[in-house]
């Protein structure tokens, strides 16, 4: 009985996860709301930091994880919490390369909802500070 209930729970939670993540929709949202500046392959441009091979480093520390939600392009975007979580997960999956660990925790709508209400007013200096913290954390590990 326990096994049956466990299997049912697993199936239901897998179903819920599959329902939440729609990679085709996430790619569309990336193209509509992110690609204009971050470029089709996430490589960025002169004044736009590259997502490619870098974005996963921000997941090293909680403040970095929150940064990806608090940057104005995320926090103030027209996407709802679920779709923003989905597109961030898609970006990490597509572009992080070796910068993200294999078992990184996916964003959820509730996490986005909690964090996006504190958008960053200033990004550049904060980012520089954050990268130093990430480098220190990596050196410790």
């Amino acid at each position: 009985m326990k096994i049956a209930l466990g299997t049912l729970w697993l199936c239901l939670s897998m179903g819920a996860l599959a329902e939440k993540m729609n990679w085709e929709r996430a790619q569309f949202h990336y193209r509509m709301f992110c690609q204009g500046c971050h470029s089709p392959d996430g490589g960025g441009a002169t004044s736009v930091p590259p997502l490619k091979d870098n974005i996963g480093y921000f997941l090293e520390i909680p403040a970095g994880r929150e940064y990806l939600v608090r940057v104005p392009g995320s926090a103030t975007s027209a996407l709802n919490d679920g779709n923003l979580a989905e597109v961030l997960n898609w970006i990490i999956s597509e572009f992080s390369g070796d910068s993200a660990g294999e078992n990184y925790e996916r964003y959820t709508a509730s996490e986005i909802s909690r964090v996006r209400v504190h958008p960053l007013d200033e990004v550049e200096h904060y980012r520089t500070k954050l990268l130093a913290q990430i480098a220190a954390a990596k050196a410790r590990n």
Partner: protein
Amino acid sequence: MKIFDRLFEQQARQLAQRSSRRGLLKGLGGLLVGGAAVPLLPVSRVHAAEKPMDKGDPSSCDYWRYCAMDGFLCDCCGGSANTCPPGTEMSPITWIGTCRNPADGRNYIISYNDCCGKSSCGACLCQRDEGDRPPYRPDKTNDINWCLGTESAAYHCSTAIVVGVAFEET
């Protein structure tokens, strides 16, 4: 050495007894027919679907891809709807929207990359602005100069490049 000769001879004879020339032809035929059938299998055709049926005149403001255009058409300036005229540089930073293609009734994602580095082209001014938003939504406004990330910020003309098919919730 003799033992190897005998072993190979034995194996060759056994193979000859078990198989036939017809069998070889049958296998080869099956492979050819099967190989031809592989493209019919239900594999992803996303990339094929992303190429739209393209009707209309790219030098006319009425062309379907220009639904949110605000600028000079590169097609009239020595370039095309997809490419910049010689001597200009395509901006890597761009604004993106969707346009409905009347040929197939589907919505496509369009990237309006500006061509920069020369003064305004001045030919085929086109202003349709469908889906254009005020400047407080900077990623969806076409009123700003999108010659960003280029060597020169001088605006010359605009392209309208198909990025893919728009996602529609079913």
